[in-house]
């Protein structure tokens, strides 16, 4: 309420004021959202994970990780530069013995915390300590309502039961639990049961994504092994349980739509920092701006290398030669980073996966529109008669 009153004083509605602040943050490249991967070590070995350290290599990985002092220094820089939202992610964040020290420092510096954890190894004491941190959300992955399928994806026997127990624990401490599901071939069949499980658990929110990111370390895993093909994707989108509000097909020619439609804008108001100090434009786009062990964050952020300047120059679909006259542009939600990993570097080319999703959405939209027009036409005939 006071924000509205405040906005009225400035002659702005609340939404306009927020838009103004967001615009200023973009213009000044304030890193408002930071995704900090503090370790890639994990007590699970999910089949589709883009970053996991294989078992047996944890100690080697641990030695390369940023120290507590290095992490707190970059958090101080980020706070000074205006960063507000901080996601602490992994790997599994809780395998770091100094996790609570890092998170407490972040809280002290006034970040809004999001904590990503697989939730499997949480103890009652750890849950209590997380509650003290007052995170905005605690976000866990769940892959199936069938324990055998969940455990087969995490490759840990008993993982499902432990996650469910810890969802209850987190909720008992008043924490906002956010469940996330990557929809893949292996868990596709039981998604309605899983959605119902999320409702039964009364979690804050439960989201589903069909995208599997390619591995970042030349990992042989291919997203196509796991993610839905076009036929499965169409079935997923068409299911009444998942059907989202599809955007209307633009009446303008594609060139006009491409000029108006923004692409994702990594490195403008956010970034990703990996456990070894590399700063990337986002989780997916793995060309570094630099490394904080070589240059303080506040220096490297404002002096991006040419490859990142090139990325920053792409703001709309019209800036991409292969997209500017594509008939699917109104449905496309391309990811430059995934595309770079999939294409082996040429991130400006057509993102084939995004194209496939756009095609499925367009097809579904046409079916729905035809159905609707068919019903309306029938209504008109009935009215005439």
């Amino acid at each position, binding site marked *: *309420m*006071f*924000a509205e*009153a*405040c*906005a009225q*004083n*400035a002659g*702005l509605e*609340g939404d306009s*004021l*927020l838009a*103004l*602040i967001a615009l*200023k*943050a973009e213009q*000044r*490249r*304030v890193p*408002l959202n930071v995704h900090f991967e503090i370790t890639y070590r994990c007590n699970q070995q999910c089949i589709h994970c883009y970053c996991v350290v294989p078992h047996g290599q944890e100690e080697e990985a641990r030695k390369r990780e940023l120290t507590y002092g290095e992490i707190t220094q970059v958090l101080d820089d980020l*706070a*000074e*530069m*205006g*960063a*507000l939202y901080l996601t602490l992610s992994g790997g599994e964040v809780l395998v770091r013995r100094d996790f609570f020290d890092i998170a407490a420092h972040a809280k*002290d*510096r*006034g*970040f*809004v915390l999001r904590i990503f954890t697989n939730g499997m190894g949480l103890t009652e004491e750890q849950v209590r300590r997380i509650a003290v941190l*007052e*995170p*905005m959300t605690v976000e866990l992955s769940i892959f199936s309502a069938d324990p055998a399928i969940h455990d087969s994806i995490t490759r840990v026997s008993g993982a499902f039961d432990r996650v469910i127990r810890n969802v209850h624990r987190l909720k008992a401490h008043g924490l*906002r639990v956010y469940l996330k599901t990557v929809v893949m071939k292996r868990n596709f069949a039981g998604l309605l049961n899983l959605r119902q499980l999320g409702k039964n658990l009364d979690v804050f929110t439960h989201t589903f994504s069909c995208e599997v990111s390619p591995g970042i370390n030349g990992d042989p895993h291919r997203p196509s092994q796991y993610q839905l093909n076009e036929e499965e994707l169409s079935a997923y989108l068409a299911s009444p349980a998942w059907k989202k509000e599809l955007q209307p097909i633009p009446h303008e020619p594609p060139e006009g739509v491409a000029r108006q439609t923004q692409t994702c804008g990594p490195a403008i108001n956010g970034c990703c920092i990996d456990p070894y100090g590399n700063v990337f434009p986002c989780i997916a786009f793995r060309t570094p701006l630099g490394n904080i062990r070589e240059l303080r964050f506040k220096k490297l952020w*404002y002096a991006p290398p040419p490859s990142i300047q090139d990325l920053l120059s792409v703001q709309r679909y019209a800036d991409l030669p292969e997209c500017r006259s594509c008939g699917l542009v109104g449905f496309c939600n391309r990811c430059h980073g995934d595309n770079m990993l999939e294409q082996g570097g040429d991130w400006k080319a057509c993102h084939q996966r995004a194209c496939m999703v756009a095609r499925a959405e367009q097809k579904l939209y046409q079916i729905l529109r035809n159905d609707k027009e068919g019903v309306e036409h029938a209504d008109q005939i009935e009215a005439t008669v």
Partner: protein
Amino acid sequence: MELHETYPCRKHVPWRALDTEALVVDVKAGLLYPLNSVGARIWELSDGQRTVDEIVRTITDEFDADEATIREDTAHFLRELVQAQLLSLEEAPRSPSTAGPRSRRLDAGG
């Protein structure tokens, strides 16, 4: 004690100043409050070290409005912050460490 004699002290909640505006986050309620330049300045000054009167004088010096209007708007704004449990009105000055985290005001151009 009258409102104008109290010392507004913001709670330890996440916030950032962005240019002349600010964002304040109520994590418990899950709400984001965008503040305009006047609101952001009042919030910034609410460090438990100054009275409402002192804040009103600073705002009057810095913004183009008459003192009576500023006084009334400031009181209204502070009461709403108290109601939202983002700020307390103290009877005596607080040590700087008890106020919420500081945030550097970003200069133009970052």
